[in-house]
């Protein structure tokens, strides 16, 4: 496949004849790699480990390197305090948001790519602007509107609020993926007897499958991570986990073990997703610039 070819090309460039200065560069970059792995892995492992320590072990002035891991924090925070519900809420909100936005965003993106739509550039500029605007901008009016509609504290409010950044994201990225597919494919399908929708569904959509996965993945992650809307639009029953964590951090007397345990559980799904789907991630992050 093409991106394998590209990466081979990159490796070929790197394997150029080794002069003295280049060998030095290679050792340097090797060391840097190790350094980067340590820097980016260590904090997590540390916080992860704190979740398994008792309060005394965390606060002790000497770093406890070897200890007997305990599940006390997890038990207290998830079960006794019932915070497992927060994780479920995050899941509900993320899945609902992304499903909704994909269902209506992907056809819209296709339309933007294939059909002449008046003011297309203007629409995209607006889509991008709202994607990049801080949540605070829409949080205020949405709060008032949902309050008047008596939707505060339900799932509807945070789901719709999350759509404000998910829908633009989906349309923006999917359109660029559709643009990569030559219009001849649509035309060929339609001369074969498919309707426009048929061509979309049967001919084009399968070609952008990895793009769809990448976009859906990122959207779920962004929704899962969202803090502000989840904080102000929800009640204690419907709050997602990311919005609850800061309130557990107090100026004095924070229960660090429990906070770390909760953060670990909240981060685990995303971490697993990242490892399971690396390739789609890189494509999605670079906006499909790596052609393949």
């Amino acid at each position: 496949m093409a991106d394998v070819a590209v990466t081979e090309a990159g490796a070929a460039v790197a394997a150029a004849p080794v002069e003295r200065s280049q060998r030095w560069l290679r050792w340097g970059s090797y060391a840097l790699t190790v350094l980067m792995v340590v820097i980016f892995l260590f904090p997590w492992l540390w916080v992860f480990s704190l979740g398994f320590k008792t309060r005394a072990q965390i606060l002790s002035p000497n770093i406890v390197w070897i200890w007997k891991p305990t599940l006390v924090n997890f038990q207290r925070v998830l079960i006794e305090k019932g915070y497992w519900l927060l994780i479920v809420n995050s899941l509900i909100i993320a899945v609902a948001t992304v499903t909704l936005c994909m269902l209506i965003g992907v056809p819209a993106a296709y339309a933007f790519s294939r059909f002449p739509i008046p003011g297309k550039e203007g629409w995209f500029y607006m889509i991008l602007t709202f994607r990049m605007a801080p949540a605070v901008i829409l949080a205020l009016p949405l709060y008032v509107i949902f309050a008047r509609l008596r939707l505060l504290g339900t799932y509807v409010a945070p789901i719709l609020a999350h759509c404000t950044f998910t829908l633009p994201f989906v349309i923006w990225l999917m359109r660029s993926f559709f643009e990569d597919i030559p219009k001849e494919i649509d035309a060929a399908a339609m001369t074969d007897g498919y309707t426009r929708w048929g061509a979309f569904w049967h001919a084009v959509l399968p070609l952008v499958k990895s793009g769809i996965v990448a976009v859906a993945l990122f959207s779920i992650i962004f929704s899962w991570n969202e803090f502000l809307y989840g904080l102000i639009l929800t009640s204690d029953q419907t709050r997602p986990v990311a919005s609850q964590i800061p309130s557990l951090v107090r100026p004095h007397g924070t229960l660090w073990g429990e906070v770390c345990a909760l953060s670990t559980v909240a981060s685990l799904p995303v971490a697993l997703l990242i490892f399971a789907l690396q390739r789609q991630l890189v494509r999605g992050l670079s906006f499909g610039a790596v052609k393949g």
Partner: protein
Amino acid sequence: MRSKRYIVWWVAPAGILFLCIILVPFITALTFSFRAFSFTDSTATGQFVGMDNYRKLVFDKDFYNAFRVTFLYMVPALILQGGLGLLMALVMSSAVRRARILIPIMLLPTLLTPVVIGLVGTLVLNPDFGVLGMFLYRTGIIKETVLGNAKWALPAVILVDTYQWTPFVAVILAAGLLGLPKEPYEAAEVDGASPLQTFFRVTMPLLWPYFVVAMLIRTIDAFRIFDIIWVMTHGGPGTATEAVAVYAYRHTFRYWDFGYGSALIMVLFVFISIMVEYLYKALQRWQRAGAA
């Protein structure tokens, strides 16, 4: 060829959602900005006061402080993230097999909840048991909690933000580096260019569109930053880390002054849309460069 009515079906659902959750709230906020509106009674709309809120804005020194804090955070952050990101990208792209393992690990900070990242930062800087905090405290560099210190709180935020987003910049640049054409490099080698010359004369100009896009995104993101600051310092001590989004939050959801808050939001929005215009043009140039 296709009738206009037909196209509508493709975009209508997205258009309606966009209208309801983005445009309507936005216009609502606009109308609020011209009213004196204190959200103590959810049905009141306040009275029309014309430009009063905007006038108040001009004389509010915290408003200017918010912009000052944001710029003080943005400039070092951009320099660090751009420089380090480039360095990391060069390391990653020089050995593609390494990149496959590196990228998921490095992306952890970018893709995890900013709230958890802020938490990790708080913990690392904790003078009692945090890795960095203990070091700073015991060597006497910083005699109290870093985050409670007006001078060091913002650098701490910059550090944590850089930790989270440098991998993002690095991945975009690495994707660019991996997709660069071979010919210029072969030509440079034939001409006997040193690695440094090759870097500045060949790599940088080709990489420039990617660089611009990544930097512009981070610039706009600087005006959005909220979660990290909130969980680490709540904007304090005092207003030392109160970036614009945090400042807007304080006036809308702490003081419940929705009229003033709306005016704030509108000003912020104008700012952001100007920057997005640059981003938009840069993205178009980037698409064209990628297609070449």
